[in-house]
């Protein structure tokens, strides 16, 4: 994790990406019991000049130059495959902006907050995402006012009520 974070901080320092944050199941280790996962998801914000299409190529090229193996859409850091997901909608962009720096092995890691992890899970809305949202609700220290604000602004309150009514 630390090595991956350092690689992404370099990407940020060199202007390849604007911001990044850890999301997905790997982020849950900061808030809940561990859940089985096989990859690490980093959400990134990139600046795309007007009129240009978004390309992941600069990110992959940079990491490849640094000696990391790029396999398909994944970057192998040690044996851990890292997925880079460019923030694909306003909710995810906001989640990356609002990420918190949390300590891990003596270093700081930008991690998406539990309120945004719930919102992203509800938006993705597969079975395992709903389970994650419930797990976070049960085990993480959730700021309810903040969660309600995010869910209301992104039109996810109805999904959340449906998920909670199944508990």
């Amino acid at each position: 994790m630390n090595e991956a974070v350092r690689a992404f901080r370099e990407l940020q320092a060199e202007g390849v990406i604007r911001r990044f944050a850890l999301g997905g199941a790997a982020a849950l280790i900061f808030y809940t019991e561990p859940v089985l996962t096989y990859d690490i998801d980093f959400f990134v914000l990139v600046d795309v000049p007007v009129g240009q299409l978004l390309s992941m190529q600069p990110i992959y090229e940079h990491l490849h130059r640094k000696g990391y193996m790029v396999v398909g859409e994944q970057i192998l850091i040690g044996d851990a495959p890292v997925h880079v997901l460019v923030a694909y909608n306003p909710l995810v962009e906001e989640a990356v902006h609002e990420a918190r720096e949390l300590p891990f092995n003596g270093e700081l890691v930008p991690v998406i907050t539990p309120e945004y992890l719930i919102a992203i899970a509800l938006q993705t809305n597969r079975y395992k995402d709903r389970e994650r949202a419930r797990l976070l609700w049960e085990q993480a220290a959730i700021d309810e006012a903040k969660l309600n604000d995010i869910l209301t602004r992104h039109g996810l309150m109805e999904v959340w009520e449906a998920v909670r009514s199944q508990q």
Partner: protein
Amino acid sequence: MRSGEELPEVVRHVLEFKAARRKALANLPPEEKLRLIVEMQKWARAAHIATGRPPTPVWNLAMLMRRAQESS
């Protein structure tokens, strides 16, 4: 056992124990949880192989930690 029937005491006890255990796991440091994920990956891989399915990946945590220290 039909839905709506009360669970036997012994089952309720096990469920309460499991709930407390999950709460304790949630309070572990993230570094320790990462180690547990790798252990789960090992069990999942063993189960896949034992049942004739393709092996699933297991992270080499020792290597990851060593590389992280080397690059710091």
